């Protein structure tokens, strides 16, 4: 009933191929954007913006990047943390070595360096696939961790090897306040999500999916596996690199390689799997689940006024979070995005399900 597209006639190819073909979706997305850009900054507290929304948005962006590789092109990667690190350190180095480079350029160049590294570590994907590729990308993770710990050039010879970003500005506006940071990150995420959504609907996106579904068949019909796989690695690591730069610059401000260790790679892979492989929206769901649910669970005892120790609360949080993961994967192995799609389908025919 709510999602009935009756009466919405498509009279041109253009309107048939638009990004959100159903009017309800367009309205919903517009409302969501207005909410995110106008209502949230006006209403949300400093804590909510800085500690919850900014990390959520940045990790969503990283999950989108990973989803392109894993969900759309079918190449499992355990090197996401490494590509984030490359983005962050490259952006930082550009800022330190070429003082006065605008922030956006720094972040995009960080993404560009991540692309290079991503493509290099994507080359093995031409020969190996599946779990073996996952192990090969694991090498990227260990190599990058090693490089940023041991090669002093990358940290500008900082004695302890941690780096710290200067005060950030964008077009002369200081990015120190929570609202400014939030809007900056949100703009990045919105633009990149839109680009990614369009990219996966394009010829390139269809090539990726063909490779994912059956690479032999894809090459028979004229898709070059090398081109398709390497573009997927390139686009994915660019987006991941940008998110890494945002994570370092806008969320942490000062970091050590540990911020982008193997656990980060796993965390992002779980986001993509739980959110939904091959879905841009799923990346947001996955990030929301992994980032927000533990924090929310952690707040529950104090909101209810239960006199629990923080350690007990943390243990309970882990138990509930773990069982939620199991529950969602059993209820819908295709991820939260699939649940959403099912829900939409139900809404479409409600209240007459037959």
């Amino acid at each position: 009933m709510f999602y009935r597209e009756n009466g919405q006639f498509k009279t041109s190819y253009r309107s048939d191929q638009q990004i959100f073909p159903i009017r309800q979706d367009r309205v919903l997305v517009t409302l969501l954007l207005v909410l995110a850009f106008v209502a949230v900054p006006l209403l949300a507290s400093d804590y909510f913006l800085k500690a919850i929304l900014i990390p959520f948005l940045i990790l969503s962006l990283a999950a989108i990047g990973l989803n392109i590789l894993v969900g759309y092109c079918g190449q499992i990667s355990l090197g996401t943390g490494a590509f984030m690190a490359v983005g962050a350190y490259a952006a930082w180095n550009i800022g330190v070595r070429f003082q006065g480079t605008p922030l956006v350029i720094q972040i995009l160049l960080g993404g560009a360096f991540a692309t290079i590294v991503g493509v290099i570590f994507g080359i093995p994907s031409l020969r190996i696939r599946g779990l073996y590729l996952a192990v090969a990308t694991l090498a990227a993770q260990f190599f990058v961790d090693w490089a940023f710990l041991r090669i002093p050039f990358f940290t500008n010879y900082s004695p302890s090897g941690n780096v710290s970003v200067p005060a950030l500005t964008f077009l002369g506006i200081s990015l120190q306040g929570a609202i400014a940071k939030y809007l900056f990150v949100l703009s990045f995420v919105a633009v990149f999500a839109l680009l990614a959504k369009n990219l996966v609907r394009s010829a390139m996106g269809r090539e990726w999916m063909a490779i994912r579904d059956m690479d032999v068949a894809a090459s028979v019909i004229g898709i070059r596996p090398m081109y398709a796989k390497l573009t997927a690695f390139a686009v994915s690591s660019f987006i991941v690199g940008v998110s890494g730069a945002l994570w370092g610059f806008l969320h942490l401000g000062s970091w050590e390689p540990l911020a982008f260790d193997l656990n980060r790679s796993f965390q992002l892979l779980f986001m993509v799997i739980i959110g939904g492989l091959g879905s841009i929206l799923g990346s947001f769901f996955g990030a929301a689940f992994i980032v927000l649910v533990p924090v929310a669970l952690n707040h529950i005892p104090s909101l209810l006024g239960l006199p629990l120790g923080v350690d007990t609360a943390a243990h309970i949080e882990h138990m509930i979070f773990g069982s939620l993961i199991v529950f969602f994967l059993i209820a819908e192995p295709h991820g939260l995005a699939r649940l959403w799609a099912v829900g939409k389908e139900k809404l479409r025919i409600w209240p007459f399900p037959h």
Partner: protein
Amino acid sequence: MKRITVKHIAATIAAASVLGTWSLPVQAEEQFVPLLAYRTGSFAPLGIPWADGKMDYLKLVNARGGVNGVKITYEECETSYATDRGVECYERLKDHAPTGASAFDPQSTGITFAVSDKAPGDKKSILTVGYGLSQSTDGSVFPWNFPMLGTYWTAADVMIQDIAKKEGGMDKLKGKKIALVFHDSPYGKEPIALLQERAKKEGFELLLYPVTAPGVEQKSTWLQIRQSKPNYVLLWSAGIMTPTALREAQATGYPRDKMYGIWWAASEGDVKDLGAVAKGYNAVTIHNTAGRGKVHDELKTLVYDKGQGSDTNGTTMGTIAHTRGMVISMLTVEAIRTAQEKYGKGKSMTTEQVRWGLENLNLTQERLNEIGFGELMRPVKTSCMNHTGDDWARIIQWDGAKFEIKPDWYRSDATIIAPLVKEAAAKYAKDKNLTPVKCEG
């Protein structure tokens, strides 16, 4: 049914508001202290006594009647040693009622880095006793960071001094080999700058052996040590890395009494299970935190005997990490008291006022005796140029069952550390595009 008129409502509201004001007790002044802790995760064995100590001392202060009558309120937040969660905790507690966070003790290098970047904007002090960036001693570049009582450079310098003493003088170090086995992270790399400086000056050879976190795999490291035969091994380890290193030392036959651990690698929990294996293992402690002070007795009578202690299992109270936790809380409380002396006794202090208190702390021996820390610390005085204050340290040695405190007191050599601090701080300011604050006087 009775009709409800405007008059009724007005009367009710008036009555309620009168009652409301009456029923509220006279608001006592309060001061909020945030407690970041890790009671879960792989570093919990160190985190639990530390967190208990911090909380216990605040309970003791309240039992003594607060800071000039101002009650300390606190809230604990679990970080599990993860930077993300630590940042979340920081944001959650930084503006907590009623005063905002007096001073954060992040308990982790990664969290310290991340919150140090946010602290100046939020006007919150970061108190890192015995850890953090060594160059943050320089208050003109790091106005909101307080690496009090000692940094990693202090610890490294004290180890070298103790080695020199054993060898019979600094000049005897010439031609010796000293190895640093370190956790491969900014934490482990922190002492390198100072050790290189010392190696250059005293003419000993510095061998560096990084160990990949978490440090359970050290076979190749100790094989190299067996080949290179260093005269001494300095151990910059954390968590599981410490017992592993000691076991490997035993396996390769490296004498444990030639090993020096950093204070985070020298809690009872690190060596207790090893017993005789670790016998002879030396470590540095911040001031005399391995000792026992009057504060312990007072804590027992005023807090534990009333059943309010944080250590419910009876395992953490009296351990080194617990004592160190108490010292950290004590420094926060004394900073609040110092601030009150300037800005108004018996009042809640703003975070900026507490920062002033941290920067102008002057803990004399009389004051330390008064609060029960006389045996645990030497007098400490901080200033704008020196946020560390007097960085005394002592050496302790594991005798197979407990840590024995060695009689000497050491402090870092200012002629070596001060130029290093200045240089590193200036570089930090340049990288970060900061203008250092002017220190008065």
